[in-house]
């Protein structure tokens, strides 16, 4: 196998919003490269739709403290409050900075950035829904991704497109660099670098119905987990209430922010029963649970009674076309329904990982639950868990998270690189990966152990046993299934033996990460005997602040998962019952 050697100060893995924002911060002062398995503009930040919250107060009085209150309450009090303060306070400058870099926000008549309502965001700590989400039609993520990439182009940031990082080298707790696979040639590249940021995104592909891209396989968290680094709060996975029926394609919460209403088969606005004050604009965990409850009570629509309706018909053609053009297009394209005239069949879709690689507020990766750090390794964005989202993220806070904490991870890289010296990494660093790849290339293919077969069983079973409602029974069942899938994965085979664009090989390696993500999700969910945020246990329906005001840390222990806990950092908001 051909091995190519590179020497950099810093490497960023992933070129979505978090990776690009970190790159903009780090590139001016160091030899930096961004490595992405896609092209940067293909990253899934581009699929985010509704907005990015910041208390700009362009429409009405607002205050970043109210944003922080909503974020903490939305998190079901599991978010670390000092980190939430940073997120909400720095949000304002982060939005303004993106505008200065050219982001084409929608505008108010005053010329200021337009802001809309979004789930769980209120003024005066719950008094009324807030106009806080800064948006560019319903393609805010696309505009953020484009703007950050444009800024990187203007700065001459160096990219390695379609290179997939598959190994990180950490020696004595210190980062040495990464090893990447060049997708177009099959060559391996050793990147010596003393600062590495993981911004690889989420892992929605552990579920069958998901809003996530095919690329979202938990590569960063998986790679670090396999090196002994824990994963935090993995039991908290968000299901977005409005995915297109069966396909899972996201229909933004902005649809409800602009006045859209959820209805059951009888046309009833059922959210009035679940969240009397803010109704359809309740946080996502509550709305998804409400939909699941309606469906199991027989109130679902359709021949299998397994969906509800998102009704936009009362908004009028002009508002729909002006403010929600992309999702209107998705509905027309994929279900051939005209949202101006007819309600849209929707069901909850696997959307966002609150958990991930544990970091401090400066993006530094934690090595344990006691506050240890790995020198030179950083993480940001959905791959990371700061934690600002706790048990349930509010809509719009992910786009905020990527820019605020992407920037902070970049700053940490700068600080670390300026205070340390380069240390060499030899070509033999590629040996482990080279052996792994040779193993897969040489093994004879059998369909019984194909990637697709194991992966589809993983996705089907996670959908069945570990989705919105969980119990000891479903989770025990899933633990057994995962252990069987893990055994079968040890024999996984591929049919494609070529060097050029061998995506089957990469899917086989990604499946290992997906299994890690599922293992840690299920083990953490089984141990958390309470219901909080997106984690709903049918056998433990209440929140238990006495035992579980804690973040879970899942460590790899052979083929099983070992759990430790760390106390939540509280602040000015005392945990209270979460009502809307």
């Amino acid at each position: 196998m051909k091995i190519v050697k590179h020497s950099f100060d810093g490497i960023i893995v992933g070129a979505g919003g978090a990776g690009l924002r970190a790159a903009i911060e780090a590139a001016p002062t160091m030899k930096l490269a961004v490595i992405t398995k896609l092209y940067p503009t293909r990253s899934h930040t581009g699929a985010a739709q509704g907005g990015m919250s910041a208390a700009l107060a362009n429409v009405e009085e607002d205050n970043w403290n109210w944003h922080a209150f909503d974020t903490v309450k939305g998190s079901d009090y599991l978010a670390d409050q000092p980190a939430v303060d940073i997120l909400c306070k720095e949000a304002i400058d982060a939005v303004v900075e993106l505008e200065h870099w050219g982001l084409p926000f929608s505008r108010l008549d005053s010329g200021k950035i337009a802001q809309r309502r979004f789930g769980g965001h209120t003024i005066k700590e719950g008094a009324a829904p807030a106009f806080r989400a800064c948006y560019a039609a319903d393609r805010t993520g696309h505009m953020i991704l484009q703007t950050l990439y444009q800024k990187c182009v203007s700065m001459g940031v160096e990219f390695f497109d379609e290179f997939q990082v598959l190994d990180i080298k950490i020696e004595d707790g210190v980062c040495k660099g990464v090893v990447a696979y060049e997708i177009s040639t099959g060559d391996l590249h050793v990147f010596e670098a003393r600062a590495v940021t993981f911004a690889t995104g989420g892992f929605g592909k552990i579920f069958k119905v998901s809003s996530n891209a095919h690329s979202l396989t938990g590569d960063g968290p998986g790679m670090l987990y396999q090196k002994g680094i824990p994963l935090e709060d993995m039991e908290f996975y968000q299901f977005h209430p409005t995915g297109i029926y069966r396909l899972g394609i996201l229909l933004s919460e902005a649809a409800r922010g602009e006045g859209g209403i959820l209805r059951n088969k009888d046309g009833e606005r059922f959210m009035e029963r679940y969240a009397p004050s803010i109704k359809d604009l309740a946080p996502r965990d509550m709305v998804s649970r409400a939909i699941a409850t309606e469906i199991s009570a027989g109130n679902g629509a359709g021949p299998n009674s397994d969906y509800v309706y998102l009704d936009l018909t009362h908004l009028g053609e002009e508002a729909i076309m002006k403010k929600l053009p992309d999702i209107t297009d998705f509905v027309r394209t994929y279900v051939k329904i005209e949202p101006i005239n007819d309600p849209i069949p929707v069901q909850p879709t696997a959307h966002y990982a609150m958990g991930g690689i544990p970091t401090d507020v400066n993006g530094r990766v934690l090595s344990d639950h006691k506050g240890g750090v790995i020198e030179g390794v950083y993480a940001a964005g959905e791959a990371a868990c700061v934690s600002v989202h706790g048990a349930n993220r509010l809509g719009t806070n992910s786009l905020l998270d990527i820019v605020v904490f992407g920037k902070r991870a970049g700053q940490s890289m700068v600080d670390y690189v300026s205070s340390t010296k380069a240390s060499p990494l030899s070509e033999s660093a590629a040996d482990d990966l080279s052996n792994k790849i040779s193993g897969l290339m040489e093994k004879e293919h059998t369909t019984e152990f194909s990637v697709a077969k194991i992966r589809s069983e993983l996705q089907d079973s996670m959908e069945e046993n570990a989705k919105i409602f969980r119990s000891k029974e479903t989770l025990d069942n899933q633990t057994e299934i995962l252990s069987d899938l893990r055994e079968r994965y040890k024999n996984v085979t591929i049919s494609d033996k070529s060097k050029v664009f061998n995506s089957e090989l990469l899917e086989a390696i990604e499946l290992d990460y997906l299994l890690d993500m599922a293992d840690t999700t299920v083990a953490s969910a089984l141990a958390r005997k309470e219901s909080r945020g997106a984690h709903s246990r049918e056998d433990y329906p209440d929140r238990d602040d006495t035992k579980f005001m804690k973040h879970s840390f899942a460590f790899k222990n052979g083929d099983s998962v070992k759990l430790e806990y760390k106390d939540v950092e509280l602040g000015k908001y005392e945990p209270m019952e979460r009502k809307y």
Partner: protein
Amino acid sequence: MEIDLKILRYDPESDKKGHWEYYKVDAEPEERILDLLHKIKWFEDGSLSFRKSCAHGVCGSDAMVVNGENMLACQVLVKEVSNPIKIEPIRGLPVLKDLIVDMKPFFDSYKKVMPFLINDDEPGDRERLQSPEDRDKFEDTTKCILCAACTTSCPVFWTADSYIGPAAIVNAHRFVMDSRDQGSKQRLEIMKDVNGAFRCRTAFNCTSACPRGIQVTKAIEDVKRETLLNN
């Protein structure tokens, strides 16, 4: 229903040139062309190579030629195309393997138009103001996802790959028409070049091909007009 697929395959490790391969796949009418490609790749022939990511028409990975027309494989349903379905790589860029082309020339052209906001004024500590009317002037071209469906549908680009192509002009338009931008003069110089906007022969292929519904030909006309007005 059973679908017949005919795919233009090319493996640089064993083929001198492309050849057709034929597949039969069971599919629902509501499935995407991308779903069919996955069925082949995952359950029949793991070597079939194509790019994909978001699977709902926003990332721009999977532009290909389906029954003679450029489209995103994830944005077209089985029931919308006639059977048998013929799939080829997009044209005018070097084929690397099967449905994967070399995107480097495409992104090089994109970078030539300086696709970033140029404004040297001190912006202050709040957002720059822009009226909704000014914002609307470039709304259409902000939608571009750089999938190359437009550029690789252009007959001028097929015969002269030095032509900067519709996608790059769309991205020039996005900044030229932005009231906050001060770089139009430099960009329009590039547009005036022999390989710039005036190579367009208004075939409208690009407009038909755009999966985001951008009025590409109109954007090119806008840029040509700006070039003349700013002369």
